[in-house]
């Protein structure tokens, strides 16, 4: 919205008032050429400096006047934006913080009056209950399924993305279109036939079945994203490797893998979030086999069993989101970069 020299003059300090004060040529331009504009200003900030006419850029008095006016405008906008930040932080972070606060209260403090945000004393009994009900098993299952699943998705989609980027074969366009179609169609649609499909394949109520299903569901997105990365690498690099005696597999391993590593990282992050959070496919495939429950299923079943123990539900929610939140905060910058890059390819 604003031009580059704003940033330079403000020195990134974030203090726009100082920035405005240190701009004598401009404010002077405002008062000299357009006295009405300068005089009518309520705050004296921009009219305080005067007499540095020599520094003024010749031939741009009107623009300077506008800029001077814009200073007030800008400070007003800064205030509005700060207000927006506060509202957004409150709306988006408060529920998470509140659930944490609710989970560490001793029994009964949830109902005391007046209600406090920071609990008077901390008690971990809610967590004890959640762990007694099998939280360790759910965490273990989710970890195994997520790690093996994400690894498999990468192992399947990297070669496919390579093939779509580097080979020219008949039916390539059609096949790529089909992959995109599968990416766009929601996986929720297959839950009805899923039970019979997985039973026929002998994969019902198994972790392997669920992992294979995730590979089928998540490769289209991963292939599209990785193909984008492969396409940015000039094919001359491949040719050079071929001349040096590398076959295609060696080329991929020794030459191409390094430049597409950021793409693989994005695919890994996205799929980790998806696999860890996924509920309905896992719920259908794993069925009533308690020992295989993932975190989403476990937390859901837990709350339908102990519907009124809000402290325990809060505790279960905290444990369920903690691993992802930790990873996310650690990789936040990477994550946003990948999101922006990946955003134009669906999801």
């Amino acid at each position, binding site marked *: *919205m*604003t*031009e580059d020299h704003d*940033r330079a003059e*403000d020195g*990134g300090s*974030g203090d726009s008032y100082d920035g405005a004060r240190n701009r004598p040529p401009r404010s002077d331009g405002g008062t000299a050429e357009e006295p009405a504009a300068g005089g009518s200003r309520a705050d004296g900030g921009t009219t305080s400096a005067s007499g540095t006419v020599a520094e003024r850029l010749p031939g741009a008095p009107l623009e300077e006047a506008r800029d001077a006016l*814009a200073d007030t*405008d800008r400070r007003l*906008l800064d205030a509005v*934006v700060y207000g*927006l*930040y*506060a509202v957004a*932080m409150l709306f*988006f*972070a*408060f*529920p*998470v913080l509140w659930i944490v606060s*609710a989970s560490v209260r001793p029994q009964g403090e949830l*109902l005391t009056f007046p209600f406090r945000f920071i609990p008077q004393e901390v008690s971990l009994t809610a967590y004890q209950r959640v762990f007694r009900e099998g939280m360790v098993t759910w965490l273990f299952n989710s970890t195994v399924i997520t790690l093996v699943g994400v690894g498999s998705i990468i192992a*399947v989609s990297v*070669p*496919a993305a390579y*093939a779509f980027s580097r080979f020219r*074969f008949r039916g*390539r*366009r059609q096949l790529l*279109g089909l992959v995109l179609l*599968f990416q*766009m169609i*929601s996986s*929720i*649609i*297959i839950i*009805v036939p*899923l039970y019979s499909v997985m039973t026929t394949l002998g994969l019902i109520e198994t972790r392997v079945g669920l992992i*294979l299903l995730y590979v*089928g569901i998540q490769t*289209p997105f991963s*292939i599209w994203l990785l193909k984008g990365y492969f396409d940015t690498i000039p094919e001359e690099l491949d040719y050079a490797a071929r001349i040096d005696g590398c*076959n*295609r597999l060696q080329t991929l391993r020794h030459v191409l893998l390094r430049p597409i590593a950021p793409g693989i990282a994005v695919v890994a992050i996205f799929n980790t979030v998806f696999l860890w*959070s996924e509920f*309905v496919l896992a719920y259908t495939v794993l069925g009533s086999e308690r020992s295989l429950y993932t975190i*989403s299923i476990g*937390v*859901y079943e837990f709350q339908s069993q102990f519907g009124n123990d*809000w402290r325990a*539900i*809060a505790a279960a*929610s905290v444990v*369920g989101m903690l691993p*992802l939140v930790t990873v*996310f905060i650690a990789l936040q910058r990477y994550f*946003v970069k990948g999101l*922006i890059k990946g*955003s*134009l390819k669906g999801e």
Partner: protein
Amino acid sequence: MATAGEDDSVESGIGRVTDLVGRLIDNPLPWLLPTLAALAVFQLYPLVEAVRLSLTNEVLTATGTEFVGLENYVDLFTSTGFWQMVSVTAVFAVSSIALHTLFGLILALAIDYGVRRGLRGHLTTRVSVLLAWIVPGVIIGLIWKVMLVESQLGAVNYLLGTVSIGPVPFRSDPTLALVSTIIAGTWRGTAFAMIMIYGGLQRIPQRLYEAARIDGAGRWARFRHVTLPQLKPVLFVTIVLVTIYALNTFDLIFALTNGGPGQATEVFALFMYRKAFTDYALGEGAAVAVVLLGINLLLTVVYLYAFDIGAEI
């Protein structure tokens, strides 16, 4: 002598294998085989199976199914429950599209402005918004369930209580229940729209703003005549993707209200789930799935048309 000969044959053996591998991997098929197998088994086959099921009267608890033609579809389109669900889904989807896109746009502009001006807090804001997005859907449903409980331990009712409003029955009143699911959905979904639009803002050439400034355009004029037209393609793609996302929402509502009270928050996916797994009517559930598939395909075509994907392939 003998050993040298053996070495030769071993070497040529290895050479032949390498040649074979080399020739094999010069063909795209081995590279694509795992993907093709996974897609055929876990995407294509279930979809075909859904279409087949939708033409039968299969019930989860009984054996012996018959081909019934389009009967399931006729039943579906003539039932009031289906149209009730369609209107709930429409309200949910339209509100989601409006709120996600509007909040996403405002936040993207505010963060972009903050980054350029060096304002403090833009990073924390971005992290807070994204945080909501990575929380698992079921847990989002539970977080809002706890937030909206109808006593003072529900934070929202407690805060409303301090200004003597309420307690508001957020989950037991049909209209408010739908509003609650929309709020929870917006809490999660705004991040996606924000990131899409933020990415779009970064791609607007700065010289356009400089040219507009030289022409004397003020802040609002620059937004109206430079930012908005430049963002149009991104906004369109965002709206299509948010639509697809909203129409297929399941886990969040499943955990928050489970479609209730009554059918008040029963969207497409929950309706389908109830038919198939609560009423055990697999045939009918599959018919709902096929209708949802049709809608997904339609939106995909719109998306592809907007994105001009032909050029990319």
